[in-house]
């Protein structure tokens, strides 16, 4: 039976957080999108104007709309389009939490190589998430 093969402690811990995080993230995404469509909160970009923007390059889109990239959306979260970013950021952040969870388990086992790999991965992901790296040159 499949149950005979036991996943390691860190695999199970990782899976638990990933599972919960994915479900919560998806739920947030759906709820905020319903709010966005229903008009309960006003959007920053009027919905009927969206076709003006979605065919632009991101560089021009930011220029025309006056939207600041990076984490500036947090200040605009009362606008329903930016409210959707909570769910997206949550889904994109779950993996970082999973890595934080497995480090103590690996450390307890004195698996220093994998502790180092996990720490480096967290740094890579946090660097990507930090907003320091932005592009959009074309």
């Amino acid at each position: 039976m499949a149950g005979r093969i036991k996943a390691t402690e860190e695999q199970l811990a990782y899976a638990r957080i990933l599972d919960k995080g994915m479900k919560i993230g998806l739920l947030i995404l759906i709820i905020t999108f319903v709010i966005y469509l229903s008009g309960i909160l006003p959007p920053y970009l009027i919905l009927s104007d969206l076709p003006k923007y979605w065919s632009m390059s991101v560089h021009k889109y930011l220029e025309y709309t006056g939207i600041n990239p990076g984490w500036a959306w947090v200040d605009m979260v009362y606008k329903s389009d930016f409210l959707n970013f909570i769910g997206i950021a949550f889904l994109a952040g779950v993996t970082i939490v999973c890595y934080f969870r497995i480090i103590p388990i690996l450390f307890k086992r004195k698996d220093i190589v994998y502790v180092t790999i996990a720490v480096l991965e967290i740094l890579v992901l946090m660097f990507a998430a930090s907003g320091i790296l932005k592009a959009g040159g074309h």
Partner: protein
Amino acid sequence: MWKKTIHILAILLIVMIIFDTAYCNDKEMVEEATKVSSLVWWMWPLILFAVTFILGIFAVLGGVGGGVLFVPIVGGFFPFHLDFVRGAGLLVALSGALAAGPGLIRKGLADLRLSLPIALIASASSIVGAMLGLALPINIIQTALGGTILGIVAIMLIAKKSEYPEVKQADSLSTALRITGVYHEASTGHEINWKIHRTAQGLITFIVIGIMAGMFGLGAGWANVPVLNLMMGVPLKVSVATSKFLLSITDTSAAWIYFNSGAVLPMIVVPSIIGIMLGSIVGVRILAKTKPVAIRYIVLTMLLFAGLRALLKGLGIWT
């Protein structure tokens, strides 16, 4: 039932081509975009939802990731700029990987010890890929995307798969990292012990895969599986599962770059994620009643068509 689905897909593709041809050539100009597009704004997210739902079905039946179908098809036939399509593509692939990941890890099919070193290399590379992808001129990206999709079709046609690759001796790097495992093969009832070789070569290859995943927003299962299976000697099931799990890490870093660069529009992302996920659920149910070989060729044809479209669009031949 799948015949009906194919008919619907064909009709939708034709509708999209007609609208796309009628759409403006210089999509950078706001005025032109407003003037030429005759569709009500909400039709596009609705069509997107319908198309991604069908893509979700085909992705499961064809054994490919959602991202690899999403980017060329939506990028080729919808009025959305490729920047937003790639951002959405990464989030589509990420969501699929996040949804599948927990089950695959719990069953021991996706292996964490194998994944962690690869993920570190691939996710760092995908940041570079995303930065390059957002900085390079769009015609170059379109052309390279078209070439890559056609390359994927070739890989899917030519590359063999090995259920249980023969690894006579684990190499020193994988031994040092203790990358080895055992999984239960339900079809035979056996427990399969596996080890890997050519670890260094595999890790180097994942630099390229990471860059391509970030640059095109494709996900990377099409490349992960052959490298894990054929190059590194990982059993096929573990390769497929580990590849899917890897996407949850690799695509995370690239998705953050697109997100922080502003290349994420909720009106494109959310219908796509929900459409693909619902389609995947339906696809799993249909899977038992269909002939996978036939579906595989349909998926390959779709990819071939979308790849040619991207290539010709990039070269300015079919705008």
